[in-house]
């Protein structure tokens, strides 16, 4: 058992996340969370926050998986009123970059979940991943599209 093993998490958490959702990667555990706080000093205070890179988009918005479109919009607006840089910086809560990062994450979650096609796509992958993780099947790899087509 190496005591410091949890800290230098793999640098797969790219600083500039593209369109791929965080869940397309393997390893839902806490390792990813730590890698976020370690890779950017400015976000250290958010290490314990709900918005870690590996939480699901639903968790990012703080809603349940079956949330309606209305609930998604409401949650997005509620969060925007707190974390948007215009608000957060004016209230002196945190620096512009930290709140910009947080807002971008929330917006990404919102834009995926508010688009029915992208949401369906995301749900399939999320379900596949959780199923694989709980059954200990194929090392937590998401299902391939061939098997996804079956149901």
């Amino acid at each position, binding site marked *: 058992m190496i005591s410091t093993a949890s800290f230098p998490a793999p640098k797969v958490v790219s600083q500039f996340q593209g369109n791929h959702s965080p869940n397309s990667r393997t390893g839902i555990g806490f390792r990813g969370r730590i890698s976020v706080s370690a890779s950017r000093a400015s976000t250290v205070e958010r290490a314990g926050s709900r918005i870690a890179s590996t939480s699901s988009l639903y968790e990012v918005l703080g809603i349940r998986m079956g949330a309606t479109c209305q609930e998604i919009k409401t949650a997005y607006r509620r969060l925007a009123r707190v974390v948007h840089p215009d608000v957060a910086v004016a209230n002196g809560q945190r620096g*512009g970059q930290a709140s910009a990062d947080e807002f971008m994450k929330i917006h990404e979650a919102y834009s995926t979940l508010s688009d029915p096609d992208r949401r369906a796509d995301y749900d399939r992958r999320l379900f596949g991943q959780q199923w694989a993780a709980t059954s200990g099947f194929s090392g937590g790899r998401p299902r391939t599209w061939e098997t996804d087509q079956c149901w």
Partner: protein
Amino acid sequence: MAEPAYTVASDSENTEEEKSSSTFPEIAIGIDIGTSQCSVAVWNGSQVELLKNTRNQKMMRSYVTFKDEVPSGGVSNQLSHEHELLSGAAIFNMKRLIGRVDTDPVVHASRSLPFLVQTMDIGVRPFIAALVNNVWRSTTPEEALAIFLVELRAMAGIQLKRPVRNVVLTIPVSFGRFQLTRIERACAMAGLHVLRLMPEPTAVALLYAQQQQQTAHDNMGSGSEKIGLIFNMGAGYCDVAVTATAGGVSQIRALAGTTIGGEDLLQNMMHHLLPNAETLFSTHGISEIKAIGLLRVATQDAIHKLSFQASVQIDVDLGNGSKINKVLDRQEFEEVNKKVFEKCESLIIQCLHDAKIEVEDVNDVIAVGGCSYIPKVKDLVLNVCKRQELYKGMNPLEAAVSGAALEGAVASGISDPFGNLDLLTIQVTPLAIGIRADGGKFVPIIARNTTMPARKEMTFTTVHDNQTEALIIVYEGEGQQNAEENHLLGYFKIVGIPSAPKGVPEISVCLDIDASNVLRVYASAKHRGPHQKAMPSMEVRMPTVDDGHGWCAEALHRAYGSTSDLVTVQKKI
């Protein structure tokens, strides 16, 4: 990182003011600098109030005269406007000219103004001058705007009984970042600090959000989401926004804008009324300027009257032997300007499409700006939106400046006990930003209508074997295929790319727009394989171009050819 020089501009006067006003937060004022008219508004503690000049006017003509040694703006001396317009001493339409080079069609069209706009067509700023005692006194749109803003600032300071420094300005949607730097420079010259530059229809959207929130409060309702389409057409620009608002949050879904406005209607009509107008416009003698001025005033007057009556009689003696006596009716006016109106329609359709909103889902259609008084403009907006009537409850001329004043109060950290300032605007990028790659093409990295703040990355590779340099040429625009049809923002090069066959090195380009709308470009060569050699990377704040930027693209091409080009890496799916 190099800060552009204009942001450090300050003067001793300001530091003194800051000391005296440091005890309470200064509320930023909202300014709507129109192509034709200008207005100022401020949150007075309970509502937005428009400031009036000494002649009790809320709307002030945007112009500057260079009659004497000291130039003066149009904030207070409205009476002499018409006379100075005819003498060539008045400079106006600054907003149409600012930040444009002399190859721009908008600058070319401005040669018909009754002062000097000369173009050499070499990609530099145009030669703009006012006639003062028979001598051309050269100026720039920034200088003219700054002179005007100094007067506005003084007027606001007197009325508010405190020095004014922080401002929120409204800008057209189609303004590129280079143009924004010119606006900021004019403000800095006038001793004003820009808190926000707000696309005009988003300022209107903020006012709409506040009104909707107010209604929801009054009805004790939950405040369900409302979709608003905002059409804003002034003298210089036409802008459209689609906004989704609930609970004081105004989420901009899409923006669309173009340089088309009342000025185009006016110029088209002038050409229509005087078929040989071009020869008149090409010479700028004293008598020609007077003739242009007379034609302009008469045509403008006729267009205004046509908004309220079906036809108008035009009688004008241009003083050079040509007289115009004509009855003009609405039908003729609409026929002459058919293309302008078609463009307006297509802008609305494009904005709805980009917002992914069906026209049936729009709750309110809002038309503002001076041109919204024109019956044809009202009709086309209603037609495209399949509506019977427009949103009421906004003054078309005051909506944008009121929204700017609201944003000014919000951005200054002012709160209102009744929740009237519980507002937030979620903005989107009005233009796409990307780099030149794939053989002179524009490759957008941040698409138009992307929510801000935003950060996007793309990977490129080299086009030649052992290519060790890559030119990163950053453009902004509506996404025209050919890079050069977009606005150049700046360029730099990555050197020291390890020698490799073409297509092997990975060059990552990341664009970041932060919460203050500052654009940064990070470019770096990526590590491949196990070697840990330091790889070249650079971070540059944009824009970096200066006034001569029209030269740059061509000069770069001449100097480099395709030796330092990049191509996009096809994404593996």
